[in-house]
């Protein structure tokens, strides 16, 4: 220590002097350590007791235990799967993995769609337009007040009300009114509209037959995207330097749309869709969205969007009125104020409750079992039933949801910290 005492206003507060811990009850550090050991011991003891007792009880009841069943051939049929699955050779482990992917498929897309729809409705509730505000308010109340399971069963039943494959609705025919005449004329030539089919077996959509020319079109699009990104950066720098922002949209339009279209035309405008056709019991070819998946996605998105709308609305209203007025005084229009001033500030209020909604949506997806969509709960239930290993089956379900939920929480917390107000 130097002779001159440090000014506490300039340097940091003085550190507490370091002392050796004494093995005495009067030393708070020793007390804390003892308590932590005791609590750790109690928790560990309880966990050990639960595991030991479960194993003892299962053994006494002659019930098989362990996770060896994951390597056994499953033999259970699975309706829809994102990876190949052959029941006669694939294992329960793979079947469960398919369930996890199916859960992620509905939860991931559901989160994106619910966020978009919820944000639009939340903004709509604040609209000056009386009809818009009332309609979106009505939507929020209806969706939040009806149990989700009921909504899922409603959508599933409604989708089953669609005609059988042989009488499937063709979207082009539905659109054959005067309004859509032009659309029909344009797309019927490419057999596009006539290939979109709605039946109780699901929505069949034509999928593009991938050809070499399509690779070039994709390459042109990627080049365009990179170009647009660079131009945007250039525009930012120019704006900072001169205060005048060069227009971005004409460049983006040219690079992202005109360039790929030109490449496409250069290859002779090829466009081949794989059109679904009725063969035997069902349509073959094309892509499909099963009624089970569609009903679950629809139910989850519409239901969760109701909650998200309220979160967005409260977030926007949490931004002080002065922000609107100050931005208005600078001459910004309402849309620009919302995009550049209010929404970025609202985001800080919105993110934490939004995390809860994402977690809810993911967990609610386990209601899939009621309408026959094979998510991880459905497949784990079947597995535990066929193998008789209920403890392991429930453990798998818990582990999967814990992992997914913790991942969502971690990401959202990171994002929350990322956008947090930085004190300057």
């Amino acid at each position, binding site marked *: 220590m130097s002779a001159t005492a440090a000014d506490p206003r300039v340097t940091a507060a003085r550190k507490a002097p370091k002392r050796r811990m004494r093995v005495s009850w009067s030393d708070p550090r020793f007390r804390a350590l003892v308590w932590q050991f005791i609590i750790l011991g109690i928790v560990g003891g309880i966990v050990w007791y*639960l*595991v030991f*007792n*479960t194993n*003892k*009880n*299962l053994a*006494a*009841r*002659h*019930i*098989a235990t362990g996770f060896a069943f994951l390597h056994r051939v499953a*033999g*259970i*049929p*699975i*309706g829809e799967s994102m990876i190949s699955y052959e*029941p*006669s050779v694939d294992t329960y482990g793979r079947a469960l993995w398919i369930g996890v992917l199916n859960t992620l498929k509905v939860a991931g897309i559901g989160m994106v769609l619910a966020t978009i729809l919820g944000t639009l409705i939340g903004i709509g509730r604040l609209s000056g337009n009386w009809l818009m505000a009332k309609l979106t308010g009505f939507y929020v109340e209806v969706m*939040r007040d009806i*149990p*989700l*399971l*009921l909504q899922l*069963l409603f959508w599933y*039943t409604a989708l*089953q*009300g669609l005609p*059988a494959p042989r009488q499937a609705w063709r979207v082009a025919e539905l659109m054959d009114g005067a309004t859509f005449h032009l659309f029909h004329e344009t797309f019927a030539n490419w057999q596009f509209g006539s290939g979109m089919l709605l039946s*109780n*077996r699901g929505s069949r959509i034509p999928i593009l037959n991938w050809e070499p020319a399509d690779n070039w079109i994709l390459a042109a699009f990627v080049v365009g995207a990179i170009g647009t990104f660079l131009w945007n950066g250039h525009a930012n720098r120019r704006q900072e330097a001169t205060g005048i922002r060069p227009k971005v949209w004409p460049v983006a339009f040219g690079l992202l749309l005109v360039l790929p279209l030109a490449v496409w035309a250069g290859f002779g405008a090829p466009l081949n869709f794989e059109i679904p056709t009725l*063969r*035997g*019991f*069902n349509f073959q070819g094309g892509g499909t969205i099963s*009624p*089970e998946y569609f009903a679950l996605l629809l139910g989850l998105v519409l*239901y969760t969007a109701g909650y998200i709308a309220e979160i967005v609305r409260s977030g926007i209203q949490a931004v002080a009125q002065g922000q609107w007025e100050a931005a208005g005084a600078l001459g910004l229009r309402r849309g620009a104020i919302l995009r550049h001033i209010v929404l970025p500030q609202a985001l800080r209020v919105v993110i934490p409750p939004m995390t809860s909604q994402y977690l809810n949506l993911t967990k*609610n997806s386990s*209601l899939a*079992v*009621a*309408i*026959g969509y*094979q998510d991880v*709960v*459905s497949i784990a*239930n*079947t597995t535990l*039933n*066929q*193998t*008789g*290993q*209920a*403890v392991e089956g*429930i453990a798998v379900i818990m582990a999967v949801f814990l992992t997914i939920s913790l991942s969502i929480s971690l990401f959202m917390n990171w994002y929350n910290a990322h956008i947090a107000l930085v004190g300057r």
Partner: protein
Amino acid sequence: MVGFGRWSAKTVALAGMVAAWAVGGSALTPARADGTGSATLDAAIKRGLVQCGVSGQVPGFSLPDSQGVMRGLDADTCRAITAAALGDANKVKFVPTTAQNRFTALQSGEIDVLSRSTTWTLGREGNLGLEFAWVNYYDGTGFLVKKSSGVKAAKDMDGATICVQPGTSTELAIQDYYRLHNMKFTPILIQELSEIQAAFLSGRCDAYSTDASALATFRFSQGPKAADLVLLPDIISKEPLGVMVRKGDDKWFDLVRWTFAAMIIAEEKGITQANIDTFADSKDPDIRRLLGLEGDMGKALGLDNRFAYNVIKAVGNLGEMWDRNITPMGVPRGINNIWTHGGLQYAPPMR
């Protein structure tokens, strides 16, 4: 709670049972010296009730009638076992179980016996800690289709969409059949029986598959619309539907097994619910032992010597049980007859 329905309650119950294993003590305490030698029977006597797991949803097997009384072959099986155990068939408590939670319910002791159209397989006896005491219906997996589909046989169904309940032996049987015949199908798996039947009727599936018996009774329950539905002639698997008990309680297993034997012997001898009292002075030693008039047959099982009398008085012989529950559904008895009439039901001698 918003968003949590029946399914959730069932899963919570399942998770609860699992938790009970974790925190609960072992229920398999050795029988008391003054007891019957069966922990399950002792508990049932103390409770004054036999808890019997049924489906409660399948006509002909177990379904409450307009008075709320559980009717059907599985329900009468419960009554017969209760009559043997407690002497009074009314002391039965029917516990509805799903295809998914039935084994857990029996393992955890929530029910004493499972009589729910459950197929006897090696996997179930080997892994579950449960065993089959008798078969009350020899069945097989069948297909129900709509007449308008024009399907005549299971072989026509390549590429079909099939509605089936998950967690059943049916889903495995269909998978095996399609694998064997190198065909493909799309399964629609819904746990709730009424939901899967609705999906079939709405045309979501080309076929509804389960045990042929349940298909026949489901078709029957459609009333005038039954004519639109066709039961395919193919039976693609063996499905002996049995009555399950926990392993490790052999006395209780014996009780269930000999309840069936008693009903079969009664049918062999022409003893019915109505005429049983006229056999009180029978000279036939088999009948005298069956009715507890001589020998200590019941005592050997830890029961009253008149246990078989109580069973037959309560539900009749095996044939009566069939005629009361299955015949109205228009299903012929076939291999479910007793052995003297060309069926598979054969009872070992009671002596």
